[in-house]
């Protein structure tokens, strides 16, 4: 099911002085400070930071769901709007955002329809089984638990074989146990080399488990204060957490997070 | 001018000229409050009553009369039956219907000797007599079909030759050409058309044998038995008011407009209406016997027409004793 990298290679994402300010005049709020960023093809990059630091905004800018106040995003030299039209991009949102009047199967199938791709029932059912929802194809979202809804949303997200995967706290509303399990299962769902990904999360554990690179953002206005590679071996599982490198990395990220907050507090006090 | 020397008539005119209301300012010390239910919105249709009120004819009789207006959704019979109004203005056919449905009404006075129902048409395609109705489209409430049927029966016209178009009660369907003629009152829609510059032809049904007393004053048997003095006083004022009206319909129109500044009345319309209803209300019969009078003959003619309308009534429906007391006969 994985796309052939030769046919649809994972794209490179370049953010060039990308910045976002909401509102105007005295009401203006700077959500993302001017940011230069390059996401390497075929890698998963995690954005971590405190609540409200602008990491979700950054993701929405990359998806083209918001238009930046400054700078631009280019995905393999194309604009996000063009990429979205080619259906090679998929977003998983904080909220599962399933349509309540559709079954799990038809919610997943909807993605292909929206992306103007031919219907593929086998692929849809295969994805549903892969996220562990086999037997729940005909249920409606209201009949599922929060974790099951998140899985359905992820199945939907993968239904179009995206090469750019943008995950906005996809497990935000899930209990810790389920979340851990999904953290181990998730990477198996996409081909490590065929997809470029961005994962927004506030969980340091999750970032390290899933990503090839972790970017730490400061409180608002969000700016990248640390850029750390994750070299832990794949596939990663429960054992990964026992590796010494894991604890070191999570500790380092946590330190950056708290120093970022202190910096901001100091700036505010001055 | 010395007010004390003025005749009542002059006083009325002076009152009408200045303000028309409360001029006499007589404190109604022991005045008995009485409600008189009119059959439509305030207009010169009830001009005699306004004169009676503003000239103090009722105050003289010890009454404080409230003139309750009617309207499209204000039937007269319920307040009279309920006793919230001592007397109301109906018509012989409506009164007969109410009696058939159990209301204990009597007709005490006949204000319109001639029924005001009229066939109005435009000069280009006129209805001058019942025979002209053949082949015409007539706009009217379907409820009034018996009225048209009665007119046809009396004049040997086949009602099936007339196309009845249900319409609302206004002249627009005629002017807009949706119908050829209208069943309406002589005193409202034709005058509205005249005022708007639309020439029109009218045929009064009463001139073609349609004999139904209109603007009849009704009260319950119970009131006639137990509140007789008030009814006599009420009718005395009415008669005096309408006698003044006959003497000067324009003054009545003027008084009407002045008494009801919020009613949106137009003086010219009121004048036309005031004059138009005179021949319906006053006749040789009333000249000789007094306002509101009727005879056994007119009642017999009414009973005949009412029978054509499907209303079987007896002369008992009319009770002239109070009017006789008023006129001193």
């Amino acid at each position, binding site marked *: 099911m994985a796309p052939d990298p030769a046919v649809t290679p994972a794209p490179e994402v370049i953010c060039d002085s990308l910045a976002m300010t909401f509102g105007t005049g005295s009401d203006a709020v700077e959500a993302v400070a001017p940011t230069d960023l390059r996401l390497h093809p075929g890698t998963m990059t995690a954005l971590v930071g405190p609540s409200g630091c602008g990491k979700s905004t950054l993701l929405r800018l990359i998806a083209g769901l918001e238009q930046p106040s400054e700078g631009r995003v280019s995905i393999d030299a194309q604009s996000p709007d063009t990429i979205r039209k080619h259906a090679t991009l998929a977003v998983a949102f*904080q909220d599962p955002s399933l349509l309540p009047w559709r079954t799990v199967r038809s919610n997943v199938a909807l993605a292909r329809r929206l992306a103007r791709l031919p219907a593929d029932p086998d692929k849809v059912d295969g994805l549903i089984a892969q996220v562990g929802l086999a037997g729940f194809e005909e249920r409606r979202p209201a009949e599922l638990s929060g974790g099951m809804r998140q899985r359905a949303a992820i199945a*939907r997200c993968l239904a179009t074989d995206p090469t750019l995967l943008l995950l906005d706290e996809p497990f935000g509303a899930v209990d810790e146990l389920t979340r851990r399990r999904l953290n181990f299962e998730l990477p198996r769902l996409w081909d490590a080399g065929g997809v470029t990904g961005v994962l927004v999360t506030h969980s340091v554990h999750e970032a390290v488990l899933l990503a090839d690179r972790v970017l730490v953002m400061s409180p608002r206005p969000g700016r990248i204060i640390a850029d750390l590679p994750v070299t832990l071996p794949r596939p990663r599982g429960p054992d990964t957490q026992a590796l010494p490198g894991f604890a070191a990395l999570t500790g380092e990220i946590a330190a950056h997070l708290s120093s970022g907050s202190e910096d901001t507090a100091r700036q505010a006090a001055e | 001018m010395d007010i004390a020397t003025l005749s009542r008539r002059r006083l009325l005119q002076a009152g009408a000229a200045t303000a028309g209301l409360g001029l006499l300012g007589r404190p109604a010390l022991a005045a008995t409050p009485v409600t008189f239910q009119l059959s439509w919105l305030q207009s010169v249709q009830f001009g005699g009553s306004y004169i009676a009120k503003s000239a103090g004819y009722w105050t003289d009789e010890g009454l404080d009369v409230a003139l309750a*207006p009617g309207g499209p959704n*204000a039937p007269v019979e*319920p*307040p009279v*039956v309920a006793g919230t109004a001592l007397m109301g203005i109906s018509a012989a056919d409506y009164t007969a219907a109410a009696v058939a449905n159990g209301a204990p009404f009597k007709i005490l006075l006949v204000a319109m000797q001639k029924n005001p129902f009229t066939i109005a048409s435009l000069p280009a395609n006129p209805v001058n007599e019942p025979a002209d109705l053949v082949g015409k489209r007539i706009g009217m409430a379907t409820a009034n079909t018996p009225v048209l049927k009665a007119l046809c029966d009396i004049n040997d016209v086949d009602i099936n030759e007339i196309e009845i178009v249900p319409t609302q009660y206004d002249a627009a369907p005629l002017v807009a050409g949706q119908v050829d003629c209208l069943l309406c009152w002589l005193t409202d829609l034709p005058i509205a058309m005249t005022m708007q510059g*639309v020439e029109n032809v009218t045929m009064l049904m009463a001139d073609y044998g349609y004999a139904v007393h209109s603007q009849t004053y009704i009260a319950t048997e119970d009131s006639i038995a137990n509140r007789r003095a008030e009814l006599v006083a009420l009718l005395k004022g009415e008669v005096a008011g309408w006698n003044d009206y006959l003497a000067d319909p324009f003054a009545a129109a003027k008084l009407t407009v002045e008494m009801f500044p919020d009613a949106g009345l137009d003086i010219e319309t009121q004048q036309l209406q005031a004059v138009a209803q005179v021949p319906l209300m006053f006749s040789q019969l009333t000249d000789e016997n007094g306002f509101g009078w009727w005879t056994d003959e007119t009642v017999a003619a009414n009973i005949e027409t009412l029978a054509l309308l499907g209303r079987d009534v007896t002369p008992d429906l009319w009770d002239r004793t109070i009017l006789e007391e008023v006129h001193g006969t």
Partner: protein
Amino acid sequence: MRQLPGLLLVLLLWEGAARLLAGSFLLAGPVDVTLYIAQNAELLGRALAVTLGEAALGYVIGNAVAILLAILVILLPRMEALIGAVALLVFCLPLVATGPILRVLWGPGIGPQVTLAALAVYYTTFVTLVVGLRAAPRSWFDLVDSYGRGPWTALVTVRLHAALPYLFAGLQIAAPAAFLGAMVGEFTGAERGMGVLAIRAMRALDVDATWALATLAAGVSILIYAALGALGTRLFPDRPALILATGGGSARGGPLPALGLALASVAAMAVIWWALMEGFALNSFFAKRPDDVWVFLVTAPEAAANRATLAAAFGETLRFTLPGYGLGLALGAGLAALFTLAPRFAGAALPVAIALRAIPIVTTAPLIVLALGRGAVGTVTIVAVMIFFPTLVACLQGMRQTPGQVLDVFDSYAAGRLSRLALAQIPAMLPAFFAAARMAVPAAILAVTVAEWLATGTGLGNLMALTASTSDYGMLWSATALVTLTAGLGYAAVALIEGVVLARMAPEQRR
């Protein structure tokens, strides 16, 4: 000021139509209307003050009753279905029948005007407020519970606050209805007011006056509606967009309990009917009791003929009500879809929609029938005009209810506007659409009976007016009962369909 071009367009079209129809006594253009208003400013000002005063008093009383009823329903949840059903039936009472009774009860003065205004507003406020009183999250009630406090504390500390934005939304919807109620009340015999002037103008073939009155009434209604809307937005910036979407009411619990509820509410209504008439000692000549109607329709020798007359009129009425109802709903929902696809168009067209709806039906019904004919087209149009605006507003709000993240999903695939509309916004609109469809049932029946009464001279509306003038009160009350029951049944039928559809399309609404 986004609506300025739309407004200008309306004025131009209006003036053009008036010029085209000059001499037909159908329509006066904005120029003549303005002239008439300027020349009769004092008279119109006094009339407006009178009618506004009546409407305001009725508005306050009607809404106060609605608030009390809603609180009662919250404190006695078991009585909710019954109270709701009876409140609906009272709301459905045809004003042709209630007007004269109110006049007898109140005597001269503004009593009937105020009462009809109150009756016109209380139901929408009641329904909206009951939703609002329930709108607080479960955890807030758990908090009250955890301190061992009862339903009263929950009401005062939680529900009333949570309900305020809803109440305000209900108050906004109710405002134009109060004005219409007061105007119709003046038909029962009033000395002054907009309704009095309107009757006079129509009879006098005075088109300028008729349209000046219609314009004033519409303008005032729009202003009040807009002012309350602006105030609401200021007071409750995050007030709920969806104010009409309540559960299917009587539809809950399947057809059998629904039948029981229907019977219980009809019985309750009959008892109230009987008790009111006895309590006020109303004369049975005009104030027929339920048993009188039974005799009239069932046991009297002429019962069969009476039933036949009633059935014939009923048939005529339904023939126009059903297509008008369908057309109004389709138009409302269709326009909402169009406005969602082309928001710029909405800015221009929404004022037209509001104006059409705010012009009082009592002045427009005869004119619409005159213009479009006495057949199906005229009456169907009146019904459609009466219900399309509330449907449009509800559907627009419903579409805005589509969760933002769902729209983000659609955006992330660069899905087109049409697929957004068809796959996300229309399904999300359904609860609001059904709420509007339910409320449109009494409105459609009101519209058709008023049109029949004032314009076409057919059907139940005409029968009721006619029987009032010929004192055939047995028939009048039979027709009244039939109209009320039909409205109630129509409402329940829509609620039943709603229950079935929403169970499929919006299961989260079912709680």
